[in-house]
């Protein structure tokens, strides 16, 4: 069973891996044949070399970015879920807060970065706040939608069993909203690291954003690419953590999906 699943997974990813390899080789060949200058477009091998040579620098710059991303993501998720619960629990909050929440979603959050610098300076706080804002919206909205979509009959059934409001949330509403909440978290996760980077561009002394700016200002384009690779790696790791925790907290969901796939 496991071996079969593994070969199937391998078959699924092989085309993507082959395509990526072809692109990278073509890129390397193109740069060498046309003798492209490094500041314009460095060859993949050069980028990997830069990545290796500046690894110490990259790691020390990655630390503050990781701290900003992790703090902002966790706080954003907590506030987002809490807002969703409050909005669905109290009708007044829904009328007062929810329309505003939807309207504010159209404001590009990144545009708030300069404002955050004016208010909170150049320290850790404005970067974390920017990440919090970016994560908060999708999580809050998907939580409200998930909690609203609960089967009324399930809620009624629990009430006949004498369940309190809190128990209805813990046993039915939140578990049934979990797939949606994780969806919101995944959207938030993909924007988390880039928001921290944008926050750093507004003014910081360390961080991957600072590394990128310095490399770019000195036309060390191979290092810019190395920095971009590091940012992408962080994003993928964060996304992976969210996906993994979803698998751990919702085993039934994936079991059911797998069964559906097998019957198709």
């Amino acid at each position, binding site marked *: 069973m496991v071996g079969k699943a593994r070969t199937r997974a391998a078959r699924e990813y092989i085309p993507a891996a082959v395509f990526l390899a072809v692109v990278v080789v073509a890129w390397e060949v193109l740069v060498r044949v046309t003798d492209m200058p490094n500041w314009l477009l460095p060859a993949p091998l050069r980028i990997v070399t830069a990545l290796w040579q500046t690894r110490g620098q990259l790691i020390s710059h990655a630390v503050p970015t990781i701290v900003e991303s992790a703090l902002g993501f966790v706080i954003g998720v907590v506030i987002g879920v809490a807002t969703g619960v409050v909005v669905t629990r109290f009708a007044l909050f829904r009328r007062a807060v929810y329309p505003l929440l939807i309207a504010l979603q159209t404001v590009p959050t990144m545009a708030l970065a300069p404002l955050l610098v004016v208010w909170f300076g150049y320290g850790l706080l404005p970067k974390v706040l920017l990440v919090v804002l970016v994560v908060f919206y999708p999580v809050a909205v998907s939580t409200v939608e998930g909690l609203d979509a609960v089967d009324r009959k399930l809620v*009624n059934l629990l009430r006949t*069993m004498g369940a309190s409001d809190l128990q209805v949330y813990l046993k039915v509403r939140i578990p049934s909203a979990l797939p949606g909440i994780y969806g919101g978290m995944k959207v938030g996760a993909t924007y988390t690291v880039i928001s921290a980077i944008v926050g750093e561009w507004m003014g910081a002394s360390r961080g991957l954003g600072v590394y990128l700016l310095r490399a770019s200002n000195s036309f060390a384009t191979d290092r810019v690419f190395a920095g971009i690779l590091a940012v992408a790696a962080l994003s993928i790791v964060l996304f992976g953590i969210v996906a993994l925790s979803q698998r751990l907290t919702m085993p039934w969901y994936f079991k059911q999906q797998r069964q559906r796939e097998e019957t198709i």
Partner: protein
Amino acid sequence: MAHLVAHLEVNDVSKAYDQGRGQSVQALSNVSLQLGRGEFVSLVGPSGCGKTTLFDIIAGLTMPDRGQVLIDGIDRTGETGYVSYMPQEDLLLPWRTTLQNVMLAPELRGGDLTESRQEVMKLIDLFGLSGFEDSYPFELSGGMRQRVALLRTVMCKNDIMLLDEPFGALDAITRRDMQVWLRSVWEQLRITVLFVTHDVEEAVYLSDRVYVMSGRPGRIVHECVIPLESSRPRTITSSPEFIALRSQVMDALDSGT
């Protein structure tokens, strides 16, 4: 009835629903019924006769416009938690295994769960669920899901159970098996059961007494005692006595609509 105070009594209940634009629909009209302790009573009626509304009122989920619900002679109108309610669909929580679904009511009550868990382990065999304790609902057949839902209802620990067409969604063969099984389980547990169905044969086979309801507005038009022996083999459905009872209920149903 032998009992002075009925276990469950519905007293002159009426309910209308507002349809908007000043129009309203009378769902129930002066419905009264009594269930003795440990009695299995069915309620038969055409679709849309307000059976589900009546159940919502007995369960305390909906307030009637008029009338009361009495449990052991005490007015419990609009109060939840006194009767166990098994709705039409199984409504199992998809993220819980069989065991976890069944333990829902004890969990909500709080306190020590070991005793409840031991009781479940004893009952799980009677409910034909051994070997499926850790399966999720989507891994079970329709009949099994209904049995899990019924066991969950039993674990609510109320000695009155409302069953709303629990076998309505099952195929005919599974349905017959489930009827025989339910009757035998009830003989062991002796809970007071109010069973809603629009299948006359099902009602007569399962019950000690059958109430017949009319179409909208729902009223009780007939009451029929089923004097068959307590232990009922499936073959009883072809006995002349059974057939006579069935046509009696059928006639009441026809004249009420």
